């Protein structure tokens, strides 16, 4: 673990090969020299065993859910069932070309159609598009849909989106990508939306209000219903960032509490693996007014005399068009389908209930030492003011002793835990999302570690500030990394790229 793993380029040996290819069974032809590359590729050359070892070593230097608890707030790092991977690897899914004739892809279309219907039901909304690639892409797509609606309804001047100060960074960024302006609305000290502030911003230039609920501080916003009324009154749409859907599956449906449009993150809520950063999928669900504008293609069911069949609907005259090539993140959606079928309706509700229970349980165990700005009054149990599936702690006293949030994070790594999300949505916070798939023993061990770190902050601050000790590297110079970025390796300078941007 503590040895450095060389870069793949540093173990490259000219002439080494990991894979062999067949001889040509047709005549070899030379490509026109005007078209051919003159450059000699610098790609690494490496034998198969060394290749296996290199990536095996990297895999052992990588924290994962399979390895241990990963309570990264807002990311829903739940268990990724192995049967999902089995399903995605089925040749009938993995080896399917995206442009095959409909008669050849009935299984794939059927799966997508069923998933679409499940997601409609979970949202309590009328139509789902499975096209978007991730949450942010879903946001952007949904905003495009809203924009198209207003253009179609001769309200082109509705170009502004309101979003709370605690909104995830993708919300304003997605607005900007659509050319929409973003105006921030305030949150109250209890974490809920400030309705007066909201009201003061509502006018006939507002296209949508974007909220997260449960919000990013881990509270279910009970103003939601009122808010929806206000937004609708003002002629705008209420958008739900569905990143936190893991808190309400089968308990409440966004469509029922006034949401008009939302996105899902399958890689959060529906257990599709996060793959060191992706892929995910970001299906969006909309009310029927918005449905005509959804992107193409849409998967549909056609009930004919010979039974049902599934098809692509490409010809939606009001559609915003395509948002990506082909058919969406299909093999991510296969995993989401597999998961939803495994859980069933009762299972989905149990997922959310247990996610909430797990968060409240950890919160309860640590809150005296890691105070919760949005939690119950001092000395009161969590049930008096429960969090949703995640919560925020701001350990001011520990910080005042000179231990930073980052110090706490690094100490957790050495104790075998991935740190929570830090410094977001408020500075100096830990945002803890345990998910429902952890065992009670793991939750207890994590809480114990946090308490131990807190105790050490009273006796041995220097030790806490030195950690981590057991990782391959510790405390990186991230400022230097950004100031003089080294973004590629180059042979010509002994391993450090010449391509340094001063």
């Amino acid at each position: 673990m503590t040895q450095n793993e060389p870069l793949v380029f540093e173990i490259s040996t000219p002439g080494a090969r990991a894979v062999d290819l067949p001889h040509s069974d047709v005549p070899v032809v030379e490509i026109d020299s005007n078209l051919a590359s003159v450059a000699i590729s610098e790609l690494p050359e490496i034998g198969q065993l060394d290749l296996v070892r290199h990536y095996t070593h990297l895999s052992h230097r990588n924290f994962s859910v399979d390895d241990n608890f990963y309570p990264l707030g807002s990311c829903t790092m739940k268990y990724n069932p192995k049967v999902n991977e089995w399903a995605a690897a089925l040749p009938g899914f993995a080896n399917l070309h995206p442009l095959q004739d409909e008669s050849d892809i009935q299984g794939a279309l059927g799966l997508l159609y069923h998933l679409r219907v499940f997601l409609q039901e979970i949202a309590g909304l009328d139509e789902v598009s499975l096209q978007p690639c991730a949450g942010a892409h879903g946001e952007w797509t949904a905003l495009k849909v809203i924009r198209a609606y207003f253009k179609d309804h001769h309200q082109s001047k509705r170009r502004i989106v309101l979003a709370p100060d605690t909104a995830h960074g993708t919300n304003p960024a997605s607005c900007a990508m659509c050319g929409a302006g973003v105006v921030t609305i305030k949150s109250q000290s209890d974490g809920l939306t400030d309705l007066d502030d909201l009201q003061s911003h509502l006018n006939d230039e507002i296209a949508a209000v974007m909220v997260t609920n449960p919000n990013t501080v881990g509270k279910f916003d009970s103003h939601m219903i009122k808010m929806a009324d206000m937004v609708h009154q003002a002629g705008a749409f209420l958008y739900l960032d569905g990143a936190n859907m893991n808190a309400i599956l089968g308990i409440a449906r966004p469509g029922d509490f006034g949401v008009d449009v939302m996105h899902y993150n399958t890689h959060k809520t529906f257990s599709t693996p996060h793959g060191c950063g992706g892929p995910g999928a970001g299906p969006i669900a909309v009310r029927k007014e918005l449905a005509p504008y959804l992107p193409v293609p849409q998967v549909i069911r056609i009930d004919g005399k010979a039974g049902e069949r599934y098809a692509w609907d490409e010809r939606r005259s009001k559609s915003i068009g395509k948002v990506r090539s082909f058919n969406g993140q299909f093999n991510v959606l296969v995993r989401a389908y597999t998961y939803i079928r495994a859980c069933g309706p009762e299972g989905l509700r149990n997922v959310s209930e247990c996610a909430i229970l797990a968060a409240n349980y950890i919160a309860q165990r640590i809150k005296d030492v890691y105070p919760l700005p949005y939690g119950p009054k001092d000395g009161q149990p969590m049930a008096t003011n429960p969090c949703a599936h995640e919560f925020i702690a701001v350990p001011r006293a520990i910080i005042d002793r000179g231990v930073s949030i980052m110090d706490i994070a690094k100490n957790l790594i050495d104790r075998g835990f991935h740190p929570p999300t830090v410094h977001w949505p408020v500075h100096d916070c830990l945002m803890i999302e345990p998910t429902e798939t952890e065992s009670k023993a793991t939750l207890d061990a994590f809480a114990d570690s946090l308490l131990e770190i807190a105790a050490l902050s009273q006796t041995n601050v220097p030790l806490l500030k030195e950690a981590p000790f057991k990782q391959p590297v510790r405390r990186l110079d991230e400022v230097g990394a950004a100031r003089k970025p080294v973004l590629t390796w180059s042979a010509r300078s002994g391993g450090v790229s010449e391509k340094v941007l001063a």
Partner: protein
Amino acid sequence: MDYVQFTSQQRDEMLKVVGASSMDDLLAPIPTDYRLTEPLKMPPALDEMSLRADLSALAAKNMSSDRKVCFLGGGVYDHFIPTVVDHLAMKGEFLTAYTPYQAEASQGSLQAFFEFQTMVCQLTGMEVSNASLYEGATALAEAVMMALGMSGKRRVLVSAGVHPHYRQVLKTYLSDLPAEYVELPLKEGVTDMLATEGEADADTAAIVVQSPNFLGLIERVDTLAKFAHANESLCIQSFNPVSLGLLKHPGEMDVDIATAEGQPLGIPMQFGGPFLGLFATKLKHVRKMPGRLVGQTVDIDSKRAFCLTLQTREQHIRREKATSNVCTNQGLLALRASVYLAAMGPKGLREVAQLCFNKATYLARQLRSTGLSLRFEHQPFFNELLVKLNRPVDQALQSASDAGLLGGLRVGSYYPELADCLLIAVTEKRTKVELDLLVKVLAAKS
């Protein structure tokens, strides 16, 4: 199976600890009126055995490329994926990690992405690559957004040879922005140079080309780059990464932003996704680049180490001023492409490209020998052929299907003037026997 590990006894214990008499206490913040009292309307839970039966049945309804010989291309290709790629890229330790926010805990993926960025640069001859975007079309759209943002100009000249999906996506991206989408016509299957020269002007942010283009033909990208640079516009190329085993790479042609669909690099066709957006540019543009970047640095003990860097470009820091809204990217696919590229090496990739070219050339020759011809006989191609048929395309495809072949792609819906043509993709996996069979089927009169 909902994968919850608490036993009901533990559930009760925990409720007690948090001071709740029942789960409902914890749901209190959700107004009761809006709480569901009935289960969601969907089929009941499946145990794992039944689940596998359900999925197997769905998969069995698909005529995948293991059941029919695949000559479909159009941006997605049936390449060979070495076993070792699957084995390594699917390791649970990679699969179940997320974005490496905490560098100490994630040196493995950070190093893999740093290597990925480097390999993309080695492949393309560009100076800097990000750590992945969603897929080919959105990567191209992001490149155009970057060109618009950097230049402050409005016009985007897009070759009609760019993948129709990519053009459609680009239009969606541009539709509400102060930007003008101008399509450059084709002449003899490739971008009309005269028309391009005519359209390019001082307000042109970028010229966008794909090579090999959607019709399989190799574009004169270097000339287009010159047109672009003459107007202080950027030249953006969408490329096929496998073609770079043989063809001039974007760097050699002075392309400013090179983007691609990375699927040919060891990623299964999987019905169109998840795929991999490649994005590379010149170093001077790096601070305008979308997407995550991994940089090399040192740790407190002066050891080499890797971390996410230049994050001030990104949405979680810059919010509406970010270079892009992308957050979750395609990390695992980037890792997979890295393993593929490292497994192939320069020689392997060259061999793959050469095999594709040999076989495409052989197919063209055999087709000609039966009296059929390529639609644009005098244009160079790489691994895809646009063939003019002498009978209705649907009929020919039906015959191919009967012979166990996915015979190729109709292009008529994208290019009505080419409704009598079939776009046939050939990879290193296609054998002479399969090629000969296709020729026989296509040459038949009915």
